[in-house]
């Protein structure tokens, strides 16, 4: 079995983002998706802090303190991009104008509950940012995460043990092992990595999986 690395995961997600989409990329792993969108495919990236048309990182020395993304990293603006204030930015999110939110996660449940904001640990300082707005607002919520924790436990669970970000909000899960659709009757396997059988994937995953009719 060949696990996907972070860039391969990002490339796999990028394949599914059609031209013309308005997309918000979460901090961390999802940010990599931008690097894998094919040249020439026009996808408009949204950032919570008030930008549509986020472009690539500027060259060294060209950074502008007034032009950053939600991860507070310097970015550029594409021709056709626009700036707006925070209430408008979240109207775009909450008002169901974004086609995709691509988010990282600690856990996703079989019914599509998302946990990605807080470990709930006694000493952990909670921070939520825009995660709860994105979870309920985007037309489609895509999660990117490793399939297993460092200890080898499935991050796809029957019920989230971490505090949830949103209930029944995830549409598709991309892991380093598989792509899974969240449907009313459970999780459907869309894709598996090379050399990973359905049975082995099922053994590694905390909840029952269904074979998608079209999946090999």
């Amino acid at each position: 079995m060949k696990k996907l690395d972070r860039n391969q995961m990002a490339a796999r997600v990028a394949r599914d983002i059609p031209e013309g989409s308005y997309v918000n990329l979460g901090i961390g792993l999802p940010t990599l998706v931008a690097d894998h969108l094919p040249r020439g495919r026009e996808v408009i990236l949204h950032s919570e802090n008030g930008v549509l048309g986020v472009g690539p990182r500027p060259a060294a020395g060209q950074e502008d303190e007034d032009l950053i993304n939600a991860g507070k990293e310097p970015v550029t603006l594409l021709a056709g991009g626009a700036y707006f204030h925070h209430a408008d930015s979240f109207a775009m999110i909450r008002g169901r104008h974004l086609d995709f939110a691509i988010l990282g996660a600690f856990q996703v449940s079989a019914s599509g509950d998302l946990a990605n904001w807080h470990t709930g640990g006694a000493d952990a300082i909670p921070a939520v940012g825009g995660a709860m707005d994105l979870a309920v607002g985007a037309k489609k919520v895509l999660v990117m995460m490793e399939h297993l924790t460092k200890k080898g436990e499935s991050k796809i669970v029957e019920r989230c043990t971490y505090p949830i970000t949103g209930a029944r909000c995830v549409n598709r899960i991309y892991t380093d092992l598989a792509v899974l659709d969240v449907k009313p009757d459970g999780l459907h396997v869309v894709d598996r990595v090379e050399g990973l059988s359905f049975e082995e994937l099922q053994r590694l995953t905390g909840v029952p999986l269904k074979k998608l009719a079209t999946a090999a």
Partner: protein
Amino acid sequence: MINKILESAEAALADLPDGATVMIGGFGNAGMPAALIEALIARGSRELTIVNNNAGNGDTGLAALMKAKRVRKILCSFPRQADSWHFDALYRAGEIELELVPQGTLAERIRAAGAGIGAFFTPTAFGTDLAKGKETRRIGDRDYVLEYPIHADYALIKADRADRWGNLVYRKTARNFAPIMAAAARCTVAQVRETVELGALDPETVVTPGIFVKRIVRTGATLRKAA
């Protein structure tokens, strides 16, 4: 003649009392009104309630206000960051109250205050720990949480240019919370890079009309050297 332009940040905050609720614009360092925060620290106001997206980065700006222990409570969406050590220490010591608000709800609560809205229902956070104890309602086929506006005594914001009537234009993502905070506070103070003659700002591009702004302080370019 209306002239909202004051000679100094100190003069602009001279009546800011202890216990005030102060909105501070900025998302990280973009749009952070550093000169006004310095003046706030120098003024010595205590027991403040602060509204900002974050809880300070590094050692300057809002972080310095935290370090000086002037903040009783903060409303924000994302306090925990790699460089939020001053907030982290106060929080762990139980010396600051945190009201954690999802970012879109924070923005809308601020907007609602400025727009005279009494409360609103949002789908954000329904079913999560951040909606615990809050009124909810099912409207159509969705569940919503009732949220109330956040009013402030002062808003300290940063804009790029202003005229003496208080009309503001911003620069890039430094705009973020400033326009909605300007409307939500009784007294909005804007630090700006440049002041221009009345009529020099294209009225089609004014983002914050002067009705929302009480005081202007010109600080010149405050951008730090590119990292």
